[in-house]
């Protein structure tokens, strides 16, 4: 567009020309540099040290990262997080899509009521709700075990036992919270799709499942990607739910069944301990994973897209 001669002058000139735009976006970058970037960079700096927050800092180089790599609990936490995350995505993604499709296709009446109810879990306090779930899953007095006892079975130790069922409880909570959110987003996307497409497909005799898989999902791809990235971030930040469900146990209950990455990070610092350097290294590994997952998701979505289009031609 514009030709630039002196680089410095050119920069200033651009700045002036688009000053409105720059002024509009400046607050974010300024605030982020001060309040977001500084702590993050300081955190990176910390991750190369061993520091208890009170005494001297000791430089370790990549020591924290190497120790983390050898840390069996870290791997346990990672696998727990992935198991919970991946399984929970089935109801969140598929359930969200199906619900959105049903509500959008006018198969039933009262969409607005259902929509509002399904979304309600997003509008609540995590602490309060987790206390209630702890109660629902209680071993001796829980409501779920009450129904189990009505069937004549022995009570199930959801939050104790060998620790496996804690994951189930967490997945249920995670899905409970997020399914409505995804549904609303997908619904929004579907309402943007021209109704003619559905009608044409229906006239062609396509079944609902075919419409979902061959029309709706491809068209909603960017939106699905958006929700996927969002819930992946949610997955890596999963903490309050498993923590309260295991009665504030930093090890995540028996066999570390409910130990998530974020719980593990916080157990090192600043909440459960004071290994600031080690905690920072965990945080950076998590960050790296989130970034990698986002990039991979982006790539996968793009690739599928091009393959489809080629195939279509």
């Amino acid at each position, binding site marked *: 567009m514009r030709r630039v001669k002196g680089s410095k002058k050119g920069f200033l000139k651009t700045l002036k020309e688009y000053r409105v735009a*720059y002024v509009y976006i400046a607050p974010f970058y300024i605030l982020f540099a001060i309040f977001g970037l500084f702590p993050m960079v300081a955190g990176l700096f910390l991750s190369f040290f061993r520091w208890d927050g009170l005494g001297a800092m000791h430089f370790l180089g990549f020591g924290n990262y190497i120790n983390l790599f050898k840390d069996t609990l870290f791997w346990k936490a990672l696998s727990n997080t992935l198991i919970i995350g991946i399984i929970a995505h089935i109801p969140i993604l598929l359930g969200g899509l199906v619900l959105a499709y049903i509500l959008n296709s006018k198969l039933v009446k009262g969409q607005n009521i259902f929509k509002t109810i399904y979304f309600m*879990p997003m*509008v*609540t306090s995590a602490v309060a709700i987790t206390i209630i779930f702890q109660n629902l899953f209680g071993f001796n007095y829980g409501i779920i075990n009450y129904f*189990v006892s009505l069937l004549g079975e022995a009570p199930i130790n959801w939050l104790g036992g060998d620790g496996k069922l804690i994951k189930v409880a967490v997945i249920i909570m995670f899905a409970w919270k997020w399914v409505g959110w995804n549904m609303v987003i997908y619904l929004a996307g579907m309402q943007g799709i021209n109704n003619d497409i559905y009608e044409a497909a229906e006239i062609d005799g396509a079944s609902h499942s075919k419409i979902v898989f061959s029309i709706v999902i491809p068209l909603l791809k960017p939106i699905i990607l958006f929700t996927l990235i969002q819930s992946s971030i949610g997955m890596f930040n999963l903490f309050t739910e498993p923590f309260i469900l295991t009665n504030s146990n930093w090890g995540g209950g028996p066999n570390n069944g409910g130990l998530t990455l974020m719980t593990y990070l916080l157990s090192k610092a600043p909440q459960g301990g004071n290994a600031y350097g080690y905690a920072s290294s965990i945080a950076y590994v*998590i960050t790296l994973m989130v*970034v990698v997952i986002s990039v991979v998701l982006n790539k996968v979505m793009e690739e599928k897209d091009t393959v489809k289009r080629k195939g279509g031609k």
Partner: protein
Amino acid sequence: MTKLLLVIAAIAVVLIIISILHPVGKKVSLYFILGLIALIMLLPFFMMFVMATLKTNEIYSFPPIMWFGSNLAENFKNMTATVNFPKSFLNSVIVTGSHVILVLFFCSIGGYAFSVYDFPGRKQLFAILLATMMIPATAGIIPWFIMMSKFGWVNDFKALIIPSCANAFGIFWMRQYCQNNVPKSLMEAARIDGCSEWTIFFRVIAPILKPAYASLGIMQFVNMWNEFMQALIILRKEKLYTLPLMLRSMVSDRGTDYGAVMLASTCAVLPLLICFLCASKFFMDGLTAGAVKE
């Protein structure tokens, strides 16, 4: 466990058979499933309301009590005796209110700028913005606190309100909405009329953004209303407690009056729910218009 799964499977089979047999059956099973999910979604809320009217030892009894009890007044008395609910509520309103207003302002101008101005560096800056969304903030909490102390913001709402104005998600959201709903022709017409860029934004654009304000506003409201970790290390004094801190302070090793806690939780969540239910239509509109297409 096995029996539980069996029962679920049996219900599923029955529903499938019904819906294959007859179109009305299909409708019935559809309503049944939607209704069941709605029940599951509502159950925790319902239990919260129920428990707010029970004594703690009634909450922990077997078989569980699943209907309203008679202890509401007593719970209310205990709640007001242990915590200052109105004060905490006011604190939450101050923090959340100013946060929402500032975020809506900064995010709408930012998102708008990204969507309509074609300035150099736009792509890169936007990529940076998206990248910041992916980083967990937890690691930086100690340096962040050191900074807050240096600013003298410990025990000050500013520490919660101002840093959180840098909201990448909000800008992303507003940009999406602007791209789909702000016609460039409108801006150009306004420019021809001699409006300055600021005036265009406030007079012409902002009204169009109302649904987006509603949806982002509710999301931010929910986030800040429930903000816990930062509030925990910043607000040390009881008179500054926001609702989540107040709730937390009611839970103690010494034994917790869960009836009172549930009542307090109910009181803390109700405003959110009411806000959401009132703005539900607006909110959904904002989502629809914002989320559509790239």
